[in-house]
């Protein structure tokens, strides 16, 4: 009789613990909405599209709300959903942003002032971001996507590896190669600015 009571207590406690551990959609929204938005923004480069993608991401999560207790790492699970949602959205509405096509890299580099006053800092920053966006768009997909995820503050390389379903070493290698290619392109642009 006492054994049964102890067993019942244990089962009840573990059930309560499971209930407490299993995240709800609401808690996921509260804890990770910002990260989801940033992942989407890193890919879509537009506030409106990023918010749409975040909404769609949580809608996908909501459809699987009955399986939330099976998720071991809600953060990376959610990050992966956000990443795939944003990629789907970008594929559905592709915007080719390469330096070769637009030819705007030079113009952007030219417009970057060396000693910009405070009032122009925001504009200069925006121009830098546009330049970087074009440079990343010119990278191979695997390198570009890894680099985009690495710019999200909330994700470290181990989490990026989990999101992309690749080994962490591959993430580091890809980031190294991506940075190297970007530096080469930037060097060419800077050289052209100096001589132009």
């Amino acid at each position, binding site marked *: 009789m006492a054994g049964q009571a102890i067993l019942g207590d244990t089962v009840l406690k573990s059930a309560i613990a499971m209930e407490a551990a299993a995240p709800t959609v*609401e808690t996921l929204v509260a804890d990770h909405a910002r990260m989801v*938005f940033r992942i989407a923004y890193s890919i879509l480069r537009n506030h409106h599209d990023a*918010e749409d993608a975040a909404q769609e991401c*949580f809608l996908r999560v909501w459809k699987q709300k009955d399986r939330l207790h099976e998720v071991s790492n809600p953060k990376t699970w959610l990050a992966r959903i956000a990443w795939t949602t944003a990629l789907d959205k970008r594929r559905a509405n592709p915007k080719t942003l390469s330096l070769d096509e637009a030819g705007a890299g030079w113009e952007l580099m030219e417009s970057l002032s060396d000693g910009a006053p405070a009032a122009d800092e925001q504009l200069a920053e925006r121009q830098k*971001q546009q330049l*970087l966006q074009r440079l990343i768009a010119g990278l191979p997909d695997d390198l570009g996507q890894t680099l985009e995820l690495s710019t999200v503050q909330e994700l470290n390389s181990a989490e990026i590896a989990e999101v992309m379903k690749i080994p962490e070493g591959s993430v580091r290698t890809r980031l190294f190669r991506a940075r190297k290619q970007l530096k080469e392109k930037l060097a060419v642009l*800077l050289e052209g600015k100096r001589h132009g």
Partner: protein
Amino acid sequence: MADQEKDKQMQIDDMLDSMLAHYSSAEPRSGLENRILANLHEAEKGPSQGWWNFKWLWSGTVAAAIIVAAVLINGRHRIEPPTHVIVKTNQPTPQPGIQPHAPIARQETARVHRRKPSTVPIAQKKEALALSQRPTNFPTPVPLSEQERLMFTYLENTPREVVVAQIPRNDDQKEAEEFWADREPAQGTRRSTNTR
């Protein structure tokens, strides 16, 4: 020269780090979490309402299909009879004791009306059978009633003159007879005597 190159590389590195640091630092519009949750609640209501409407649509379609099918089946039964009109002209069999307009005969014809087109050979057989049993004279002879039989017996046993004398005559007929009796005494002797 090497120092210059090193400085240049360091400059590019710093520039790239700075650009990457701000690449995904975008902040969502305030209230993102609330908007996402509102959207989820709306989505939660949406499917059930849609399903409800869909269910009504389906049940309405099924009901309409049943009504149409019933009307078609009923209509077919009504249209069929003209193909078997000949069967309807069947004469009752000349069996004694069965009246020509007996309910049984009507039931028979009615039953023939209800038959489906697939039973055409049977209907043809019945038609042939009815033709073979058709009586030679029309209308079919009917046995005399009790009153008719008494009248017939009386007429057989009573002389013709007596019977004629009993026929009621009006004034015009009487005058005509007297007239003819005067003009043709030889012929009218018997008549006048009889009438008197």
